[in-house]
Structures are given as C-alpha cells and as structure tokens.
C-alpha cells in the first residue's frame, strides 16, 4: 500500500501540461451567466455564490471527466461535499460573500474580480495559460443558501448550491456544497476534462477543508514545499528551497 504512492500533484501537473498544449483557444473564455439573478438579488450576493460554486467547480467538473474520458458527455456530473466550521453561521456565510478572497482557499483559482454584477475569474494551470469565465447567481438567502446556474453558451453548463445551517449542540456551522456539471462533448469537452484531472470531489472537499482552516485559524495551514498559498498541492517534507 505504500512504496508506489505517487503525489497527485505530479499526475495533475502532467495532465495539465499535456492538456494545455492541446487545447489552445477552446479554453480561453468560459462564460457562465444568469443575468436575471443579478436583477433579483443584486450584484454582490449574486457573484459570491456563483464564484463559490464555480471556484470549487469548473475545475472539478472537468477533472471528473478526466477520470473516465470515454464516458458519455451527457451523463453530467454531480458533486457533494460538506464541512463543519466552528464559527457562527453569519460569519461563515459572510465569508463566502467576500469572493475576491475565495482564492485563498481554492487552490486552483488565480483571481476573482467583480464588476457590473458579473464575477470574472481566472484559473491557471502549470503551463501558465489562463482559463477565464464569468458567473452570476440565482438565489441568495442570508445565512442560509446561495444558488447559481449557468445559462447561455457556457462551455461547461453548471448549477450548484451552498447551504449553511446551524450544527447541533453548538458545534458551529454546517456547510454543504452541491455542484452539477454538464460538460460538452467533443474535443473541447475532453480537453477541459483532462485539464481538470482526477478526483473532483476530493478537490471540492480539500477546498472546503482549507475554507475551514481560514475560518477557524485565519489562514491556510502549510507544510514545507508550498511556497505560495495557491500552490497547495502535495507537499514534500523537505525544507523550502
């Protein structure tokens, strides 16, 4: 069970490098938009949910497909993850609204910016090429739920929900994420899938775990070998060089 352990980072890195070379312009812009949501709930809330969702999501979605690229594209992909955070619900909910800071715990997300009710965000693979898209929201109930869905011509149509509820016995806040992805068929979809690699649900869980660290401790916990907070892949137990 041991000697052959290969860091996920190495596998991911190789997959990403290869995929990036092949994909080219197909990945340059992914748009997820639901303009009606902005009219209903206003820009800040709208973007938060969408970002949260997609942050843990588009990458994850495509990564899932990478696990079995031969799978029929119309199967779609459902992801669930949950974490209990030892903080009051209103604080936890509010943090998700500070979408510019979501990259602190979503390792694959480079940046998130907002403007005109649309969240624009950028992820970056090891080959250095950016993947960008816009996102908006469809539901926002304070301290309870943020929901989104993509419309129009999104390369990876998706929808999702983040729910916040009181954990029993004063244990803090239960955060549950549900994501749904419908990756496209064809070469582009396959390329996105390969870009995003394996174990998408693990990626969402790890993001939530880092979210918990940020909420409870104030920062993401690092061990040696992680030079930038965004490069939190598998860490060698060697001192930083």
């Amino acid at each position, binding site marked *: *069970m*041991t*000697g052959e*352990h290969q*860091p996920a980072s190495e596998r991911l890195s190789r997959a990403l490098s290869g995929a990036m070379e092949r994909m080219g312009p197909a990945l340059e812009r992914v748009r997820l938009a639901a303009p009606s949501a902005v009219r209903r709930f206003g820009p800040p809330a709208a973007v938060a949910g969408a970002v949260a969702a997609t942050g843990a999501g588009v990458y994850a979605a495509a990564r899932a497909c990478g696990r079995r690229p031969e799978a029929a594209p119309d199967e779609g992909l459902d992801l669930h993850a949950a974490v*209990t955070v*030892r903080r009051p619900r209103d604080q936890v909910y509010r943090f998700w609204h500070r979408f510019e800071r979501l990259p602190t715990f979503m390792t694959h997300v480079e940046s998130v910016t907002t403007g005109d009710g649309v969240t624009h965000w950028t992820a970056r693979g090891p080959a250095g090429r950016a993947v960008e898209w816009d996102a908006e929201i469809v539901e926002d109930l304070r301290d309870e739920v943020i929901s989104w869905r993509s419309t129009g011509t999104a390369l990876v149509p998706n929808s999702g929900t983040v729910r916040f509820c009181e954990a029993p016995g004063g*244990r*803090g806040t239960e955060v549950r994420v549900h994501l749904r992805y419908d990756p496209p068929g064809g070469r582009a979809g396959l390329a996105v899938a390969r870009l995003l690699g394996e174990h998408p649900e*693990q990626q969402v*869980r*790890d993001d939530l*775990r880092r979210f*918990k*660290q940020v909420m*409870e*401790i*104030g*920062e993401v*916990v*690092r*061990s*040696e*070998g*992680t030079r930038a907070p965004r490069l*939190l892949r*598998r*860490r*060698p*137990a*060697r*001192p*930083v*060089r």
Partner: protein
Amino acid sequence: MKANCWMGRGNVEVREVPDPRILNGHDAVVRVTSTAICGSDLHLYDGFIPTMKKGDILGHEFMGEVVEVGPSVRNLHVGDRVVVPFPIACGRCAACGLGLYSVCENSNPNAGLAEKFLGHSPAGAFGHSHMLGGYPGGQAEYARVPFADVGPIKIEDGLADEQVLFLSDILPAGWMGAEMCDIKPGDVIAVWGAGPVGQFAVAGAYLMGAEQVVCIDRFAYRLRIAERAGATTLDYEEVDVRDALLDLTAGRGPDACIDAVGMEAHYANPALYAYDRTKQATRLETDRPYALREAVMTCRNGGIVAVIGLYAGFLDKFPMGAVMNRSLTLKAGQCHVQRYLKPLLTRIREGDIDPSFVITHRLPLDEAPRGYQLFRDKQDECNKVVLTP
C-alpha cells in the same frame, strides 16, 4: 543545516539541507538542543508506514531554543526554552476544544490522503510521513514548529534537557495508556512491550494507584528497566504469558491491558509469527497484532484494553468475539500530548518521576544512522537514544 533524512527502507542519512523558515503566522523556528529516536521512527525506518519520501527529515521528539517567531505567536519569544509536542494541533477546532489534540481537524494539509487510509484524518505530526502532513522532523539542527502558540511548553527552571525531553511524546504516551485503564484500588495492569513507552506506562500506572503492574517483553535488559519502574516482569519466550497472568491474578485476568507494542510485534510461536510476517511482507495485512490478540484474550471480563502501540492499517484474526462476548472496552489513540504537558512537568519538577531513566545511548546527531541501527537491532542493550545536534 544538518538533518537526519529518511532515504529508503532501513536507510537514514545525516545530510545538509536548507534551514526551515516561518511559513504560517503561528509558526516558530526552534534551534534543537536535544532530540530522540522513537519506536515509531523504527516503523518508518523499516518501511511500514505509507507515504514516506526519500529525503524526508525524521524525528518528532525534540526540544530547543526559540530563534524566530511568526507574527501571530504572542506567548513565546526568541530565547525561550521549549519542549515541542509531536502532534501538531491548531488549538481552535472542535477536536482541540475537547482536548483531542492528536486528531486536530486543521493541522494536516494532506488530510485528503490520510482519509483514504484511515477514514478521517488525524492531526499532522513532525517527521511522520506525508499522510500526516509532510512536516519535516526534529532530528535536525533547526525545526519549524507550526501552532507554536498552542503546542510547545516553556521550561523556565533548571531542569536538564534529559529530564524534560520525553514530554514531547513517550512520557505522556505511556501516561495516557495508564490513564485509559481507569485504574481503581487493587487493579492489576498488564503492559505488553517493555520499550520506553511501556516503561512509562508502568510508572504511570503505579502513580495512578495500581496494585501491581506486569510488563511483558523478551529482552532481559528492557525488562530490567521496567523492573526499576516497579514492574513484575514476564519474558514471553520463557513463559506462557496468559498462564502466568492468570496465575498472578488467581484466574481473573488483568483488570486492564496496555498494548505498547503495535504493528511490528514479535511472537513466541514461530508458526503464527511466520503467518503474520508473510502477510505483512506481501501487504496482505499491514500490522502484526500478536500483543493485541494476547491482551484481548487475557484481559478479565469487563476489563479495558488500551492500545498505545502504533498501528497503521489493517490486521487479521482480531478476536472480536472475545471483545464482544466478554464486555471488554477497547480504547486507543495517539497521545494528546498537549493536555499532559503541564501536569507531567509538575510531576517531574516535584520528583514523582525522572523520565531520564530510560536513556541508554547519547550520540551526536551525526551518528543518527548508528543510533537507528542500534535501536532497531536491540544491540548494545539499546533502550533509548538521545541525539544532540
């Protein structure tokens, strides 16, 4: 700096590596003044723990002087002398809130990896595989200490390194084993394994009021050290352990049993030893549980079996029928060192216990490879090795 690195099964090397530095706000960097080789380092050395990588710095028992603190550390200052507990714990999660520091929810950055092996992730630990966080260990000149505001205990009086070093792991580990036995007047406690943790479990059980503590091993020199802690001793190659314990307790069996052996147990029955050794070598089981089986089968009805020896994965032929039908209670855990630091430092200061009695070898850090070999092969009556950088 120099550090003792894992270079593959049965191979450690003292190498020149880059100095550690502050990575998180709650970090400190400690100049190591004393460090020790632990029995659990031998499981790494022998290649039984998954997710080790060539070059990993070993060691989770260490103490030293604070040379740098992160911006969020207010309780420690440069120059403070500290002992560092081996589990890395944030002090802010639900587990830490319950005093369960060795299962801290936030300190393992590779928690996803640990979940695959263990179901949920325990805390991160120094020098203890990537599954437990990939944190460099303390068998080095310097070490980064995460959550330095939570873990390390300051040593402010004139106690020598050797008197307090073992607060980092083995003294509280043995102590917690005895504590799990819920000792009542008249209790007879049996301890499998006369290594340093077992020796401390013996000492702890007496301090908690045990009537008699029996220690089981096959190395006469280790049993002699356990005797110095007050134990009645049994050599399992000389006597049938169960018969001897039933005789000692007039048929009742020990009130509680402590497994201070773990996954690499030896056994007096060659056929059974070969069975488990083969399954372990072929990875059909990861752990060889003789001591645990014998503890379960010997413990009195309604008694407690406390597991403080290290297990990593899966084992075969566990006598669950005995546990269930005889109302046994099975307790286990990596030591929640942080919760024992203050009370045990007080015990040391007041002279209730001087943990340095377990030390047999003092070597410079450069000789760590020899220390590992002596300790693993039980050469030169090696019981505990302290390394000085």
